């Protein structure tokens, strides 16, 4: 009994200097409690500590979806519309902008397509702007703005397939038919108008 008491008193002496969340200190050795359900038993091949994984890299063909937030300029302002004190006082609108030409996180090909497609939408300094005030919350609006950006990049990334011969043929027949109908209506109208005129001496 004495031996047990001594070991426990030494436990408490060590325990008082250690923080509560760490493992119990017994006889100078550090032990940690691992039951039948400890994580190393459920996931034997896993790194059991939290770490920061490296971000996925975009290949020249495919945009990975990773946007470096540091390279975007994000500002907040008050939203418009009804909402009383909340909309008057809280900065829920998100304005996200970046220089499209200098955005090296977008694959080169897609970036060129974007520059071409959005050239009328860029500011004088070459910034592309996305705004969002969809929700009441600033965080959700920022998420919405980023989602819009990703959607846009993916839209421009997709190479639209050239129309097939059948489609082209269909379109040509459509145009032709439309022209035919238009001329028919025009001729009929002309006939109506001319029948309203009086007869000429040559008609008799």
């Amino acid at each position: 009994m004495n031996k047990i008491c001594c070991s426990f008193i030494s436990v408490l002496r060590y325990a008082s200097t250690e923080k509560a969340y760490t493992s119990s200190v017994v006889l100078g050795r550090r032990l940690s409690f691992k039951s039948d359900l400890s994580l190393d038993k459920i996931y034997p091949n896993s790194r059991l500590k939290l770490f920061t994984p490296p971000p996925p890299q975009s290949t020249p063909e495919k945009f990975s979806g990773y946007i470096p937030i540091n390279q975007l300029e994000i500002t907040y302002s008050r939203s418009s519309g009804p909402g009383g004190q909340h909309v008057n006082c809280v900065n829920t609108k998100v304005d996200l902008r970046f220089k499209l030409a200098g955005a090296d996180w977008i694959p080169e090909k897609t970036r060129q397509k974007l520059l071409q497609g959005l050239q009328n939408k860029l500011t004088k300094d070459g910034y592309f702007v996305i705004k969002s005030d969809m929700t009441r919350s600033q965080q959700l609006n920022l998420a919405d703005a980023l989602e819009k950006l990703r959607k846009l990049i993916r839209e421009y990334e997709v190479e639209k397939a050239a129309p097939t011969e059948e489609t082209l043929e269909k379109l040509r027949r459509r145009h032709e038919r439309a022209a035919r109908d238009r001329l028919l209506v025009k001729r009929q109208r002309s006939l109506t108008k001319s029948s309203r005129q009086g007869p000429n001496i040559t008609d008799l």
Partner: protein
Amino acid sequence: MAHLRESAEKALKMLRTLPRVQLSNIRPNPNSKKNTKRGRAQHSGDKHGAGNKGSGQRQNYMRLGYETGNNPFYLRFPYEPYYKGHHLRRQYPPISLLQLQVLLDTNRIDSKQPIDITTLCNSGLLRLQPASMEYGFQLTDEGIDRFKAKICIEVQHAKESVIAAIERNGGVIRTAYYDPRSLQAMVNPSKWFEKGVPIPKRLLPPQDAVEYYTSAKNRGYLADPEEISKERLVLAQKYGYELPRIEDDPDYEMLISQKDARQIFYGLEPGWVIGLKDKLIIKSKSLPEEQANREEKS
């Protein structure tokens, strides 16, 4: 703004020309004075608004909901399927991020230690009643824009945006399940220790909750930590913040400290008896399985 200035100038102009305020040219606010006149003669007199005969005039009204004999609406339906089993459903009393921030700012909770149910109940401001089907706390997103604290917190449920808010500030959030018996011990540890009962083993979650607590998206305590690390990046990209490098944090040890799935208290194992009065921990003599459980930390 222009029309405000104009109306102010108009008001001042009026003030210069109008006579001074006297009892003779003011009146009380609308509906502030009630007419104290009694009902007499033609208009409020005679039957005094009670009509002719019947329960109305005799002040002997039918009970509320009575439909003059037919089966009333409030008695037609003996039960409704929508509330079936409501008394058995798990409840998670909410704590808003605003409350949490206030508790941290006023030093009611130490941000340098991991936070769990015991910490929150020991602050004295939050109470949990396991007997009323309350299975723990849930973190809500009220005050999410103002939350700026780096903490290691363990709750029972949290929304995605709340998880993002905590990880954005460099903290760690986990969701864990505690069965009602363990909860009773957690909510008031000193009272539990007075019983002299060994610390119980925490049980696994029920079938319908297993999926929630094993998924990395919800930061479950039974989820793979590697998957959780990946999900942290995913959430950072979704909500638009740079994920702070947790390994480079000076408080890394504290932030990644996690209880075992069978553990209820930090630093205490199931099976121990805590004697607060004598300041003792009594452990059972080591059984082979318990010795196998104790592994040396390298």
